[in-house]
């Protein structure tokens, strides 16, 4: 398989501060690469360079085999971009928005109209197609924006935080759409600050922080970096915590931690299922009632915490500003 997106040593500085600090990326054809990181990690900068919106200070990048700096027009005719906030013209209807993009791709009026109708149908917007986009919900605008990126069915697609700011239902709807896209062989680079999103969609995940890669691999590989599974147990009666802790200590690797507020005991274990069974028997014998007990695999949140020493926290003010500007 050839790499459809390839970046070597990308550096971009803003007023001396490196937004990207030597980023390498390779995305094989027909796969989804998840670029994961908190706000300010450099995700958007990377996408902007790869989509020819921004010049890198150092490094090279090719998309679909074309150098982004030497032939930006060539790259543009092979990519689709859906940005961080929905770039739709709110005074135009859905149909008019997509038609305009079609015309700009030189499809001609007739093809642009027909393609717009097909896409509106595909993205569940046919009924709203003749209403100004101003009247659309956030989820509908995102879908319209994504449809705009698919007007020529580009072989390479860039989605910059496609679900930021969406409610959970719209987010799941968006995931379905994205999965479907790639089933047709589209190569996709997706940025997200949602660990769950990368976990669900991406074949390969690159975790970046401060413009550098801090980890790379499949979701499973990343999780195994942080260690194995753990048992989590919430006791019903907080006076029985010590008994429960003893039971868990017998199967645990290392210490058993206890969170007073949630009455939750956590113990790292090896050989998951068997350890859980043993713990359950022990609890039964000791007569400790568990409100909730289960085997938990590490999430990407844990990965982030382990790798960076801080959680995948977001700069919320930055986010709300962007949402404000988008409105």
């Amino acid at each position: 398989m050839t790499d459809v997106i390839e970046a070597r040593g990308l550096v971009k500085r803003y007023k001396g501060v490196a937004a990207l600090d030597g980023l390498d990326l390779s995305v094989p054809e027909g796969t989804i690469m998840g670029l994961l990181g908190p706000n300010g990690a450099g995700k958007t900068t990377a996408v902007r360079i790869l989509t020819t919106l921004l010049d890198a200070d150092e490094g090279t990048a090719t998309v679909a085999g074309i150098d982004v700096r030497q032939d930006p027009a060539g790259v543009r005719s092979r990519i689709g971009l859906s940005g961080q906030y929905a770039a739709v013209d709110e005074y135009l209807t859905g149909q008019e928005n997509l038609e305009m993009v079609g015309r700009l791709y030189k499809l001609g009026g007739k093809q642009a109209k027909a393609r717009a109708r097909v896409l509106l149908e595909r993205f569940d917007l046919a009924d709203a197609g003749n209403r100004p986009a101003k009247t659309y919900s956030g989820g509908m605008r995102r879908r319209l924006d994504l449809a705009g990126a698919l007007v020529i069915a580009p072989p390479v697609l860039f989605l910059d935080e496609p679900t930021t700011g969406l409610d959970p239902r719209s987010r799941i709807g968006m995931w379905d759409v994205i999965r479907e896209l790639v089933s047709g062989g589209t190569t996709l680079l997706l940025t997200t600050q949602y660990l769950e999103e990368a976990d669900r969609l991406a074949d390969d995940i690159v975790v970046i922080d401060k413009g550098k890669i801090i980890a790379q691999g499949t979701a499973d590989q990343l999780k195994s970096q942080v260690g194995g599974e753990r048992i989590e147990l919430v006791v019903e009666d907080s006076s029985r915590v010590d008994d429960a802790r003893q039971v868990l200590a017998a199967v645990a690797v290392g210490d058993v931690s206890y969170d007073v507020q949630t009455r939750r005991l956590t113990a790292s274990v090896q050989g998951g299922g068997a350890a859980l069974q043993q713990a359950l028997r022990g609890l039964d014998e000791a007569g400790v009632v568990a409100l909730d007990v289960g085997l938990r695999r590490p999430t990407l949140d844990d990965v982030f915490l382990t790798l960076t020493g801080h959680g995948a926290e977001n700069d919320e003010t930055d986010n709300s500003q962007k949402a404000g500007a988008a409105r």
Partner: protein
Amino acid sequence: MTTTQASPVRDGAPQPIEMGTLQGALSDGLAIARRNVIKIKRVPDLLVFTLLSPIMFILLFAYVFGSAIDIPGINYREFLIGGIFAQTVIFGATITGAGLAEDVQKGIMDRFRSLPMSRAAVLVGRTASDVIINVITLVIMSLTGLLVGWRIRDGIGKALLGFLLILAFAYAVSWVMAFIGLLVPSPEVVNNASFLFIFPATFIANTFVPTDNFPTVLKFIADWNPVSAVTQAGRNAFGNVGPPVRDVWSLQHPVVYTLLWIAIILAIFVPLAVRQFKKAASR
């Protein structure tokens, strides 16, 4: 959403039509202009700004100032119209800047810049569609003018040339505004900043009163202010001859002087705006 095995968005994907560079750029410019024209219909603020404010200006000046100003040899309302045409179309140019700033702010510019389209088309399409707004404005103002007593006295052909010159000047100014709009990507800032510039530029001129009694410095500025030349050229074209025109080259040859300014403004601001467009990033 229906689920099919084959990729729904890749099946039946349309094929771009082969176009030469120039044809492509024209097609892009048209697509952008088409979009802006749709917006004229949809954005109520713009409609109010375009249609009502010129009417208001004519009525206010004609009856409020007009009642106190006496200009020898000509009815003030007839004197006024040439000046108010010039002022209004210059204000119209701010729509260009504010519109571009809004596109940058809302991320639509990123969409445009990621498409294989002509780099200049967004600007060409924008400025072209703003000419349409100015044409509508001039028609409305002319009708209002005729109602309050303005007349075209030297034939319609000459008057049309006058309108053309006014539109051409406004077109040049809209490239200045395009540059500002891309430089300061906030529609509000563009509007406020340009009003600070446009008010003095259109008042320190022969637009609303004869300049003979201006203080020396202002008189000098007014003599060489291109807005004065545009206004004078308009008055000449409409046959609205009033008091003797001041004896400076710029006002004795207002058409040539205006054309010079148009050429200079375009030569400077078209490249600047295109360069700024390439840089313009919504953060």
